[in-house]
């Protein structure tokens, strides 16, 4: 079983993930329409690129009014995303597996730090879960799939934590952990997790919109 989830299944899920996100981006860009969207994407590409970069920059870093207005939620969100992306990518065990399979590797972080990051993901995830149940303005928006998607994102971290600390049967939880990771990879192109790439598309688009049409040419553009 381990051989299967670590071997062919891993390969399949990586393939679906990479092809999936590329297709998502290509579809997005192909579906942009200067006339329907009323944005001169190509004619004013210089203003557009400037606006797009500005828009992404202000949100990749917490340099926006929303962070100032909602520091707790946005703080938790930034922490969640930073740890969720870096911990698995820089984990010693993961990099070793990649090196074993494909012969490439990159620097890693100490396991203790990865461990804290994992806890941070779980804690921040718990916070995101709780506010969906408690805050009326979030509750009204929440659907079952919001919980499902959050669960898909959290599962690899919870199972990874259990496996790493050998809290219960190591072999079993290791396999479950790998499976959960693979489910997440496959889910990314097909669910709201597609914001993994579509966040950048959407932010770039609204940045172009403001950069080209709504003030950018007046030297202003929106103050995110």
């Amino acid at each position: 079983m381990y051989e299967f989830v670590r071997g062919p299944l891993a390969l399949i899920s990586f393939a679906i993930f990479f092809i999936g996100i590329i297709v998502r981006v290509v579809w997005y860009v192909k579906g942009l329409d200067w006339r329907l969207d009323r944005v001169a994407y190509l004619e004013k590409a210089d203003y557009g690129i400037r606006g797009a970069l500005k828009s992404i920059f202000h949100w990749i870093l917490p340099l926006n009014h929303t962070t100032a207005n909602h520091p707790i939620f946005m703080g938790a969100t930034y922490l969640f995303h930073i740890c969720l992306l870096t911990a698995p990518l820089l984990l010693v065990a993961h990099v070793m597996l990649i090196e074993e399979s494909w012969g490439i590797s990159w620097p890693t972080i100490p396991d203790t730090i990865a461990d804290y990051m994992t806890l941070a993901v779980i804690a921040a995830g718990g916070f995101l879960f709780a506010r969906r149940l408690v805050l009326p303005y979030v509750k009204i928006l929440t659907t079952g799939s919001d919980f499902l998607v959050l669960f898909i994102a959290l599962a690899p971290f919870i199972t990874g934590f259990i496996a790493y600390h050998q809290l219960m049967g190591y072999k079993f939880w290791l396999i479950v952990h790998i499976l959960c990771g693979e489910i997440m990879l496959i889910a990314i192109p097909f669910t709201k997790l597609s914001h993994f790439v579509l966040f950048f598309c959407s932010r770039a688009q609204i940045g172009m919109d403001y950069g080209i049409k709504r003030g950018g040419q007046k030297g202003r553009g929106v103050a995110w």
Partner: protein
Amino acid sequence: MAEEAKEQIVAPLVTRVPIKTKEELDTLLADRQGRGYYKELDAFPVDTEALKKTLEATFKSRLKTWLKICAHCGMCADACHFYIANDNDPEQVPSYKIQSTLGELVKKKGNVDNAFMQYCMDTAWGKCTCCNRCGMYCPHGIDMGAMMSYLRGLCFSQGFVPYELKIGSGMHWVYKAQMDVTVQDFVETCEWMAEEYEDDWPGLNIPVDKENADILYTINAREPKHYPEDIAEAAILFHLTGENWTVPSEGWEETSLVMFAGDWAGCKMQVESVFEAMERLKPKRMVVTECGHAHRATVTEGPYWAGIKSGDTPVPTQHYVEWLLEVLENGKLKLDPSKKIKEPVTLQDPCNYVRNAGLAEVTRKIMPYIAEDFREMAQNREQNFCCSGGGGMNALGRYREQRNIGLRVKRDQILATGAKFVVSACHNCWDALRDLEEEYKIGMKWSFLKPIILKMVIVPDHLKPKAE
């Protein structure tokens, strides 16, 4: 059912197409307050096939992705003045307003009923002014105002549009203006105003259809219809600054109730009438009166409706405040500093040319010329709240109460500045402020820029009336 069908043949107040004749328009106008119209709307069927086709043709990448990746995080909630004014009612969360309307419509592929379309209409026009504020606070950059505007288009194509905007759209088709002002009415108003003010301003002239002028001045139909002094004031200021300017006899209407109505064909028709005037008269530039949505419709969105790939108007266009700042800075217009407004003054930033056209600093640079004690609202520039009258809402009887509730946010913003005077270079904001004072009586004054400037202007000797 048969009787209903028969009734519709007799009195087709509700249709899926714009009104294009004066007769139809008069029939609708005779239905006072739209009582018959809304009654008819209650029984009006949804053309689900057409709705499905429109969705297939126009619901693309940008909108699709916006609906799909909305994280349901709620960061848009307190960006909306209706959410705040309605005591944080969850049903006023912008994302909810979109997901429960457009989101469902897409999910059901247009297979919806009358009650649902009415819910869409009541949301698109009664709970949103398309001010685009919430989109600025969305981490994913989802512009819910743009989506709401798209929804309005779908509603209009199905006949589900508020009574006043069905009329407004019809006005544009019949008169190429939002009100029944004909070419003759307009030209006569210009002549009348020039005559009326000539004694005080010798040589005052309102040149109509002058070719190759430096400035083509275009306006809001309310000015010839209800506030002709506004045209006179503009003329006096052009006169004082020695501008070579003109107004077009046709194509002078900058505003666009068709935009508020979601009548996209009407938007194209209207804006093309203005662009035709540009091409006919070949001015160096165009200046738009103190109106927000006029600028949005003709300058920001208009070129796209007209199919101009660069998104630029045929000749460069400025909002009135840009022209005003220019003549203040280059000294063509001189104001008497001792006449500055002494009491505290605040500024209402119109969404349509501030958030949506980047003119935030222009009006601010004008303020030191006219005010001694200028005070910013807590949320200002692009972050400012809508006056609550935008997106056509001022005109809609059906949503008057919602509009008045929304006004509270603006009221509290103004009160917090301690200012008793609000500068508002936008017709919609101006109306909303008037209604705000009427509804809540906070003892404030409000004004366009033109009358303020005229009270302070230093008249060069050669332009003064000859002493008797």
